[in-house]
């Protein structure tokens, strides 16, 4: 029995968004004459309840088996319409959208050609709709456990949240202790409280939580599987173990910029020149350089940040406040010392930061605007040469302690971790989040999330916020107990497949593997994201992506390439045409 498509076409006005530019009536009229189209309607807002009701009624009463809505981007309302047709028992994959808003009315002026373009788009959607097949959206159960990579403050906070919510968490830390870079801090801004107190409380909870297993001197060596069902290999000391988890959080932290890359600042040459992390250490005991208490302390901001010439164009976000904090510590510990901060912009943007900056200046720290050019030695001092840009003159400031505010950099071993987890990197080298505004903790890999400085420089407050955000996002599949598997995935035609593996080498999601006995490739429907790269790479044409098969796409292309501009006459429509009265 051959399948006869019974297609309903619905052209949306979207208020004036489409209707002011595209002649929706003409499009509706014309669509009615397309092969397979049983009914063609237009309406002001198809996504509204009445709009949806139109579709549902027609499915019931006219026995529609395929639906095309010509309206906005599928990113807006594909889920809406899929839900609408599902509600009356039509498979959601028998629905197709034509985007005549973002791709037509919003980018072209009102003109006949614009209406014709809308017709192109509708026509190709109808041609595809005729060839659509129902697909099953499956669910896969999730393992109610999580893995956190990195035992710094980000990792610990994320792990604690997930464990508090009732799930087993394994936390893997490469060094022998928890705490990461925060463990090296003395005090924090803007409260100036001892970091050890804050950190201590978190480490205490992390090491004693009944559902949190901390592995130190451990590393993740392999990750397989997919969201909800990851298989992780961990090397722990001399042992190896395998762990099954439903979600993975990457909290691998950062490295510190190597100040020797700006040789004119004398780091590694002059003993008087240290970095902010080194001062943090120094400030925990006696502050002495060359055996003496320094009398003139100079801080230099932006070392290894905001520097295109060094390939670090980004701002490291925390250094302005770190410097202000350390300047306060200097004033505390060395009340007779002169403290100068050379800066370009003072980025005291967070809660309490500007007030802290005010208090720092009030404490007698002199802020001078100018990015020092070099340090030279003069006798037993070093001299910082800069221009004070507000004085408009070059200045030389003698110092017996110079502290370089070094930037945060991606870890040197980022490549290895990126490879393990198939993580992308932003242009600054840190791990890339799925969307910079609305998805700050997701990655392109479902089930793998980012927390902390590995995604970009941030302070403790922001790190904890992001870690908790990652935990919340990771908890979702764990709490639901299942993940929905995308139905539009690749499928291999075993007759045509030669097992050459080109598809696997191009697949960034590891979704294609060679069948152990059949000698053909197999697509993992949960890993597959439906991107289509395999289908194009396959030399035999053996792979299709469901819902975007060769036949379906060719049908769309054929409509566009064979398109003849319609004559705007009152050609009798074969199908029923209806508009709102």
């Amino acid at each position: 029995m051959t399948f006869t498509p019974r297609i309903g076409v619905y052209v949306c006005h979207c208020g004036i968004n489409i209707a002011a530019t595209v002649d929706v009536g003409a499009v509706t009229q014309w669509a009615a004459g397309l092969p397979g189209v049983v009914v063609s309607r237009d309406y002001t807002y198809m996504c509204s309840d009445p709009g949806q009701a139109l579709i549902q009624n027609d499915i019931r009463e006219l026995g529609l088996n395929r639906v095309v809505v010509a309206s906005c981007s599928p990113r807006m309302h594909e889920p809406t319409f899929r839900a609408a047709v599902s509600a009356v028992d039509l498979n959601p994959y028998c629905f197709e959208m034509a985007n005549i808003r973002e791709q037509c009315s919003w980018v072209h002026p009102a003109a006949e050609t614009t209406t014709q373009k809308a017709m192109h788009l509708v026509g190709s959607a109808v041609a595809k709709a005729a060839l659509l097949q129902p697909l099953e959206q499956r669910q896969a159960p999730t393992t109610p456990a999580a893995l956190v990579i990195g035992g710094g403050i980000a990792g610990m906070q994320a792990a604690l949240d997930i464990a508090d919510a009732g799930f087993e968490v394994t936390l893997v830390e490469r060094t022998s202790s928890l705490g990461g870079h925060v463990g090296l801090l003395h005090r924090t801004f803007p409260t100036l409280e001892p970091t050890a107190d804050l950190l201590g409380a978190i480490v205490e909870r992390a090491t004693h939580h009944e559902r949190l297993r901390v592995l130190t001197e451990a590393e993740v060596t392999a990750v397989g599987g997919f969201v909800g069902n990851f298989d992780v290999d961990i090397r722990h000391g001399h042992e190896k173990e395998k762990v099954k988890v439903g979600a993975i959080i990457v909290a691998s932290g950062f490295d510190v910029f190597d100040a020797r890359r700006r040789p004119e600042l004398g780091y590694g040459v002059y003993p008087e020149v240290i970095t902010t992390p080194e001062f943090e250490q120094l400030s925990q005991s006696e502050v002495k350089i060359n055996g003496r208490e320094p009398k003139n302390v100079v801080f230099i901001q932006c070392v290894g940040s905001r520097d295109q010439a060094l390939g670090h164009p980004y701002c490291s976000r925390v250094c302005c406040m770190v410097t202000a904090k350390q300047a306060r510590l200097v004033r505390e510990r060395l009340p007779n010392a002169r403290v100068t901060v050379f800066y370009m912009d003072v980025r005291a943007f967070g809660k309490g930061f500007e007030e802290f900056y005010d208090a720092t200046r009030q404490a007698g720290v002199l802020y001078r605007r100018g990015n020092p050019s070099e340090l030279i030695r003069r006798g037993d001092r070093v001299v910082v040469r800069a221009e004070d840009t507000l004085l408009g003159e070059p200045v030389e400031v003698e110092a017996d302690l110079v502290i370089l505010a070094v930037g945060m950099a991606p870890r040197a071993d980022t490549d290895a971790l990126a490879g393990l987890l198939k993580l992308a990197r932003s242009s600054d080298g840190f791990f890339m989040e799925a969307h910079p505004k609305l998805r700050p903790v997701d990655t392109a890999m479902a089930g793998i999330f980012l927390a902390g400085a590995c995604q970009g420089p941030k302070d403790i407050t922001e790190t904890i916020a992001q870690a908790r955000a990652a935990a919340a996002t990771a908890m979702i599949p764990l709490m639901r107990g299942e993940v929905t598997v995308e139905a539009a995935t690749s499928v291999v035609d075993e007759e045509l497949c030669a097992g050459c593996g080109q598809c696997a080498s191009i697949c960034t999601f590891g979704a294609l593997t060679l069948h152990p006995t059949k000698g053909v490739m197999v697509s993992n429907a949960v890993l597959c994201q439906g991107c289509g790269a395999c289908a194009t790479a396959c030399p035999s044409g053996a792979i299709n992506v469901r819902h975007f098969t060769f036949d379906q796409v060719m049908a769309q292309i054929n409509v566009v390439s064979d398109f003849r501009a319609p004559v705007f006459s009152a050609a009798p429509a074969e199908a029923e045409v209806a508009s709102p009265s």
Partner: protein
Amino acid sequence: MLQIEAHPITLQYDLFDCIQCGKCTGGCPMAMKTRLNPRSIILRLLTAGDGFDLEGREELWDCTTCSTCSSRCPKKVNPMETIIGLRGAFVEKGRVHPNVKTALESTFRQGNPLTMPRDQRGAWAKDLGLKEYAEGTEFLYYVGCTPSYDPRAQKVARSLVTLLQKAGIDFGVLGNQENCCGSEVRRLGEQGLFEMMAEENTETYKGLGVKKMLTTSPHCFNVYRNDYPKNGMAVQHYTQVLAGLVEEKRLEFSGKLEKTITYHDPCYLGKHNGIFDEPRAVLAAIPGATLVEMDRSRQKSLCCEGGGGRMWLEGTNPSVRLAQMRVKEALEAGAQVLATACPFCLLTLDEAVKHLNAEDRLQVLDIAELAAQAL
């Protein structure tokens, strides 16, 4: 009033990229002794509105084009080139110092800025029996104007010839056909003359089939390597060649030189082109020599005030000379020899030693001279 349009300059040199951090002025050697303030000039150009007044801005001629500013700028702005551009505006309006005018005219007419006759250019080598460069010779040894004509600098050229011959390098010279490379012409803002010279010289080298060139001066090296149109020539400074020969053991020193030597990085070798190690490698290979580093070494080397046309310009503050500061630095470092690898540095530092009456304490010598001594 000497008004020029500022906007085209801000666009040409991407001055909007500047964040006014002041790193340029903070490191500028001339800002140490004059009004020259690259950051401020950039801001004045950006905010100039109707026009930027060049009148009274003689400090623009103080710039030695050492490139400390441009090499350190975190936003990849090029204050040095901007200043050269402003000099060009002066040149277009005919407002140049008589010395500069003379030098430019001489370059145009005689192929050298030193007002020396063209047909005397090759005279320094007449008793050396040097080969005239022809197609197929491995290296063109480009001598340069100063080493050709200046008696002090000629010693460097002669030393270098000795070294090359000892190492068996196949090289030729252009003799009287050698024409000024145009480096200082461009730094002085005479872009039109420079382009003409670059075109002519490139034609000459192409016609001769020159594939590899070595130069005495870092200035010539820099302009051929970076400013000339793409010509397929591999250009090296002589210290790079010598360092290679030393490493391959094609040049070995059988003599000794029991001296404490400190090396002054020429701006055009160091800051401009990142060549710090090769000159040091040659010195380190000299038996008996003790190398000490001044505090201001490598990227912090103190400009001698020889570049950027300053060989012909006293500047707005001639009473303070950076070359004299440099000589003092060398003495403080405990050196007996102040080594360099640039004829301009050689001459200015040599003069400074004389001014300070320090000839008995410090000798200024080129690396080629030292190496030749140790042969």
